[in-house]
């Protein structure tokens, strides 16, 4: 092996730059394409009112996606996010006084206590997942699949097929209220995205998340407490889901079984479509934001054009597939560049 310093610009020129940035460019191009397409296809799409609608519609997904971004950056996955959102929302309603016609054996507690218990529940479920993944060594894919069932089972036991409506005031405000015309839920989602971005970019913990995701073995050989980091992101994922679940109950106006099922796919799609690598270590909150808009614009835009509603599901699936192809392809290009460097 000759030791002649830096290998010079292998993937030179504009082509090289595009390949290197494919992960970031593709989602943005997709978003731009969708916006332009729907603007031409529908008169009502490109309006301030509709933009506000989109923001409102993606907020719950956004809060879940924040947690998932941490998890996926660590090269893990969490399939229990929607189920945990559901059970947390149900728990907060369970501990709130319901109207007399609601047939749930609820235990009314002061609003803040109910919120605290709900947060504790999602935290505890996250801890169980973290324990299973880090200490027992169950792959997160399987562990969170089990957790999804557990959380769904808890939801079922709490509501027993009934529907609850009342939630604590603070949850009601944050989930369905507005301030100066801006929905609180949009503000909360924005705050979650902002804080997560700051944590991932500017704190030691954030750096560890990227490094563990980038090369877990190297992180361990560098003396990073890898199990702690992986456990922590799984707990973050669960708590974000829990918050989304509580606000979601207020947003929908009810708490019931299977209320959040579609959010699992949406949240994962938002993270991955945004360009965060499924293999960990690349991407971040800005990617997730773009991904959220791609999904939001798509879901919203399809409602504005005349289209078979049953076709919508298929279209969403195809878009997700395209994003996955790009995600994996971008990874391959990067590995090739790495091998060339050796």
């Amino acid at each position, binding site marked *: 092996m000759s030791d002649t310093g830096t290998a010079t610009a292998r993937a030179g020129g504009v082509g090289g730059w595009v390949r290197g940035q494919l992960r970031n460019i593709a989602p943005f191009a997709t978003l731009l394409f969708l916006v332009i397409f729907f603007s031409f296809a529908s008169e009502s799409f490109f309006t301030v009112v509709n933009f506000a609608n989109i923001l409102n519609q993606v907020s719950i997904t956004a809060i879940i996606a924040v947690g998932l971004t941490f998890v996926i950056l660590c090269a893990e996955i969490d399939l229990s996010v929607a189920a945990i959102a559901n059970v947390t929302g149900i728990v907060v309603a369970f501990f709130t006084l319901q109207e007399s016609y609601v047939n749930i054996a609820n235990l009314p507690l002061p609003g803040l206590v109910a919120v605290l218990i709900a947060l504790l529940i999602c935290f505890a479920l996250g801890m169980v997942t973290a324990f299973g993944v880090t200490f027992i060594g169950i792959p997160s894919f399987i562990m969170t699949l089990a957790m999804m069932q557990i959380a769904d089972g808890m939801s079922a036991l709490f509501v027993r097929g009934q529907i609850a409506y009342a939630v604590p005031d603070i949850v009601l405000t944050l989930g369905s209220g507005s301030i100066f015309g801006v929905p609180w839920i949009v503000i909360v989602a924005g705050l979650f995205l902002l804080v997560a971005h700051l944590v991932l970019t*500017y704190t030691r913990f954030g750096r560890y998340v990227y490094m563990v995701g980038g*090369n877990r073995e190297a992180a361990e050989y*560098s*003396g990073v407490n890898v199990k702690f980091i992986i456990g922590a992101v799984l707990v973050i994922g669960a708590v974000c889901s829990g918050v989304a679940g509580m606000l979601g109950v207020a947003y929908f106006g009810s708490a019931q079984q299977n209320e959040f099922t579609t959010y699992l796919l949406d949240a994962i799609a938002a993270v991955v479509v945004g360009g965060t690598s499924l293999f960990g*270590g690349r991407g971040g909150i800005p990617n997730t934001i773009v991904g959220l808009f791609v999904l939001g614009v798509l879901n919203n835009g399809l409602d504005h054009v005349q289209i078979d509603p049953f076709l919508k599901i298929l279209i969403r699936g195809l878009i997700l597939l395209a994003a996955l192809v790009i995600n994996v392809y971008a990874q391959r290009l990067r590995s090739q560049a790495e091998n060339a460097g050796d």
Partner: protein
Amino acid sequence: MTESSDTPLLEMIDISKSFGGVQALRGVDFSLRAGEIHGLVGENGAGKSTLMKIIAGVHHDFQGTMKLDGKPVRFRSARDALDAGVGMVHQELSIVPDLTVAENVFLGTQPKTRLGTIDWRRMVRESREHLAGLGIHVDPTTIIGELPIGLQQLIELARVLFSGARIIILDEPTSALSPPEVELLFTTLRRLRDSGRSMVFISHFLDDILSISDTVTIFRNGQKVITSPVAEIDKRQVIEQMIGIGHRELEESYTGEITLDTQFDAPVIMETRGLSHERTFQDVSMQVRAGEVLGIYGFMGCGQIELARALFGKIRAQGVLTLDGKPIKLTRTSIARQEGIAYVPESRRSMLFHHEPLYKNMSISILERISRMLLKPSSEREIARGHIDNLRIRTPGPDQLLGNLSGGNQQKVALAKWLTHAPKVLILSEPTRGMDVGAKEDVVRIVRGLRDKGIAVIVVSTEPETVLSLADRILVMKKGEIVREFAGDTVSKDRLLEAA
């Protein structure tokens, strides 16, 4: 020798083989008689495996003539060779770990029932009988991956035998075996020899070679040096031929005596007592002092790599480990780091972050010291610039992606990670593997500098040159145990090899 005849069973004449620019074999002659065990020795890269792969039909583009039973042959594939009675147990096991023992024994040749389905009952019965015949008593329905590696190896051997091979090649079969397993293997090999089969046996363990073989052939640098009946050669002569004493211009300083500059009075920094890890190493007791470089030398698979990992908490070992006289439990690597233990593994890939900039690679282990909660990229870059200068890392700057550096420079980055705040103990596993001469000298210079600052350095290697050029004191490991210490005296490559 149990038998002798004039025409050898297998004859290789003037064999040459190159891989791209690498000349792996140069005009090698080799012959194997019926009913002999033929030992093959030589340093890593001498060409032993390459010659054997030619015999076993793995490599087919080579120059030279190959004769089996006096007739020229040329195998086009391993299958071809097996049909002609030549089987090989490779250095890298080729069993299928998820299948049962019986399926592995019959791999590719499963018996069929009249209905065309696989005859399981016959497969299990025959493999049990066959294995028992070799002294291996194991339930044929066990998943093979769950068995000890030594047993797996014996079963692979059984498969090769079962396919009817007359010539069996074993490439370093004992490096993963425990002593009783080696005994079982040797008993089996002797029995096979007595039944008229021929074997080639490659090993780094010269004692093994000398005890089991009838004939030895020594390779050096792609050439055959000598073939001799075992009775007429001893271990010392084998080593001399292997490393080529007499070719002093080639050997430079390494064959000469090196005086170890051992410190006997410096305080002990790290000590182990009775450290053991499963089957990889047993009862290791040793001390490392401040300001000394302790070399740990042994052949591949001797447990020294695992020992190094255990000292960093990457794997958990039983026994006592003390640091500055205080017992510590290394349940994870982050504890080792906080205690002041640093580790550079043998593979750069497992140490570095290829798509991250240099400065992040260098700061990962010291983030706690330079930042409380928020990162300080400016000080990270500052520190990285210092290392780039000190270690002469060739790169435009700290923001360069690690993957853009050449191998030797990456190796320096792996070292730099630990140098910002001097560790108490620095463990280096194969620190100069794959480096060119210049980069090796840089490493020697860096390690000496650290030692002079009072750091206890442990260098673990399978290359005698590495240990000799760095260490002040040398421990030799053999099959998981420390068997010899060289301290305060002179040592040379041949004495090191002799001990291992």
